[in-house]
């Protein structure tokens, strides 16, 4: 296989990074980019000159990830930034999120599309409050893989005991997490141990390097290929001579495998039909699966429009006007009692009301707080939403696309909350 061919056949892994202030997250990302040769000469020159302007005698790898003027001036990360690198095996998208307490909303944002979360722990400090919080958010957002990097091993003499202590601390509270796959790697981001290259300082570690883990972790099963969910985005009507009566439903498959001939039902109308064809620019396909973008035609001429969902008759989502969700509040302004918002769920949109606030979650311990129902920024709360029309929802744990929603303030148009459906 030529180089060109192998590049064409790469898999995409999206991961998010979380850490506390000063635990070396930016340095780690800089190290991954640098050691995988994803940093270009002119970027290097620019960072070298910034480093010396700041009076540093080494190249500050962290500067590769600081983008905005204020961030460079203050040495902090303000907003989610996306980074890209590739190895011959995979292409990676990093959602780099700030670790400060007030920026939980950024972490939720970065985690929402990630297959994997990288959690950094300072080997000297061990598992701290922020480690727990980041891990809980990863779990809440149903990220299937967690890689815990125990960093700054150089500052604990690369000692196995220090590593084992952190692993055991982490495992103690990890039983509360809903993450099926957790791994540990002892690293030094500053010196590069076990990041891309195997460390000679830690012969006792027989596991994989961080990059090798990222390159090989099995992600093909992360998507739902069982439950067919097709939210309709728009109707394609060419009105041309060649496609005079063509009526196709465009959308991205949110779950399951679809084939021509399949019996389907359209929600909310409840009309049954069969898939006539699944069309793409390259021609019709025999089957299609998540996350493909396709256009579907049906055997029967029924009314289907944006916001509708095409599913199998024997496997349907919940159809309900009362949606129980875990909300992450993202806005400075908390909701008034029985406040109304716009809700967006798949391609569907409506008004909704926060009918009931059930409890808040202490993000450090996962305990329920039932006597304080005042919601403010970064709170995780369990609420019941009421919509004027039925929505078609799945549990977020079953499907991240049909189980997620956002709330929008009707006055300011800001996105104020992210919700995960949990019955």
């Amino acid at each position, binding site marked *: 296989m030529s*180089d*060109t061919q192998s*590049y*064409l*056949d*790469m*898999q*995409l892994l999206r991961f998010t990074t979380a850490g506390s202030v000063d635990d070396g997250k930016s340095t780690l990302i800089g190290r991954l980019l640098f050691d995988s040769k994803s940093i*270009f*000469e*002119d*970027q290097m020159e620019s960072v070298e000159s*910034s480093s010396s302007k700041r009076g540093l005698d080494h190249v500050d790898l962290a500067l590769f990830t*600081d*983008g*905005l*003027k204020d961030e*460079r001036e203050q040495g902090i990360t*303000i*907003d*989610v*930034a*996306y980074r*890209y690198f*590739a190895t011959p095996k*995979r*292409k990676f*998208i990093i959602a780099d999120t700030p670790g400060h307490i007030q920026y939980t909303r950024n972490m939720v944002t970065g985690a*929402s599309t990630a297959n994997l979360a990288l959690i950094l722990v300072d080997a000297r400090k061990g598992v701290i409050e922020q480690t727990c919080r980041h891990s809980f958010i990863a779990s809440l957002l149903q990220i299937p893989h967690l890689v815990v990097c125990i960093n700054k091993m150089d500052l604990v003499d690369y000692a196995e005991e220090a590593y084992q202590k952190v692993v055991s601390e982490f495992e103690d509270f990890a039983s509360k997490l809903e993450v099926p796959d957790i791994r540990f790697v002892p690293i030094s981001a500053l010196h590069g141990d076990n990041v891309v290259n195997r460390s000679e300082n830690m012969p006792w570690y027989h596991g994989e390097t961080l990059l090798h883990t990222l390159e090989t972790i099995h992600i*093909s099963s992360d998507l739902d*290929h069982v439950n067919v969910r097709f939210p309709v*985005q*728009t109707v394609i*009507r*060419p*009105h041309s001579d060649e*496609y005079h009566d*063509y009526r196709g439903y*465009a*959308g*991205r498959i949110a779950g399951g*495998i679809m084939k021509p001939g399949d019996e389907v039902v359209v929600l909310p109308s409840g009309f049954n039909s069969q898939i006539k064809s699944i*069309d*793409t*620019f390259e021609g019709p396909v025999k089957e299609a*699966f998540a*996350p*493909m*973008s396709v256009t579907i035609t049906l055997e029967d001429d029924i009314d289907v429009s944006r916001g509708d969902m095409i599913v199998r008759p024997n496997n349907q989502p919940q159809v309900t006007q009362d949606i129980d969700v875990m909300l992450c509040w*993202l806005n400075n302004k908390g909701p008034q009692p029985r406040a109304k918002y*716009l809700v*967006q*769920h798949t391609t569907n949109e409506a008004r909704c009301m926060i009918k009931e606030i059930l409890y808040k979650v202490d993000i450090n311990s996962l305990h329920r707080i039932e006597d304080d129902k005042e919601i403010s920024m970064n709170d995780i709360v369990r609420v019941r939403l009421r919509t004027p029309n039925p929505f078609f929802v799945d549990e977020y744990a079953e499907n*991240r*696309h049909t189980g*997620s929603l956002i709330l*929008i303030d009707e006055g300011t*148009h800001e*996105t104020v909350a*992210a919700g995960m459906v949990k019955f």
Partner: protein
Amino acid sequence: MRYTLNHLKELEAESIFVMREVFAKFDNPVILFSGGKDSIVLTHLARKAFWPARVPIPLMHVDTGHNFPETIAFRDKLVEKMGVKLIVGSVQESINKGRVAEEKGKNASRNALQTTTLLDTIEEHHIDAAMGGARRDEEKARAKERFFSHRDDFGQWDPKNQRPELWYLFNGKMQMGEHFRVFPISNWTEMDVWQYILQEQIEIPSLYIAHEREVVRRNDTWLPVSDYIQLEEGEKTETKKIRFRTLGDITITGGVESDADTLEKIVEEVAAARQTERGNRADDKRGETAMEDRKRQGYF
């Protein structure tokens, strides 16, 4: 049958999803077309997104008047092939009307002037969403962009106050007079774009392919000789085999020496490159946060 997509197919599916969302959510969207490879990929994706219908979204070109002639010829041919409407905003007209003043000096360019023309054209045509081919890997300020990027009624970007963007639920709500910039290929890298052009055999302007050209050495790059640049004392023109990694104005876009005269060779060259593609763009060299500063004001 393996139920996985390779990275190009996954990126393609994501971009098509975004473009369809734009079509469904906005009344008057356009695709910003520069004649560069990224906007060409965008038009290719648009054809896929709405097939078998014609692309229902016009192209909009901000014409600085300092184009490579190849760019305009390519644009007109593409518009005809796609059967779409073309909206042109002219920087020359903005200058004539006194909206902006031409820069002076040997490094003068019309790059910064484009912002005014772009915003005026958006306003004149009541455009509520302008899709662009910007990618997050291009530049550090762009790494912070959303897919749906809100612009206030002055067309400005407020990077510290962006709406959180979760899953694939895009918030396209705005007040009268505001608009959105949408970046469907946010997650693509330069390498992805070239791989995709190769895989799909997408037609691109010959400027990207290595060719003999009259050039002058200035600011560590090979600037093409044209009516719009004045030679300084001591500068001499040479003929070199070069190609362009990005296409902007003819006055600011430097070429690199290259023998890559096929798509395959370009992909190999990109894979081996030690400089970012914007390294030859004079517009990005005007300070450490040049792109952020321009973007805040409403630049592409």
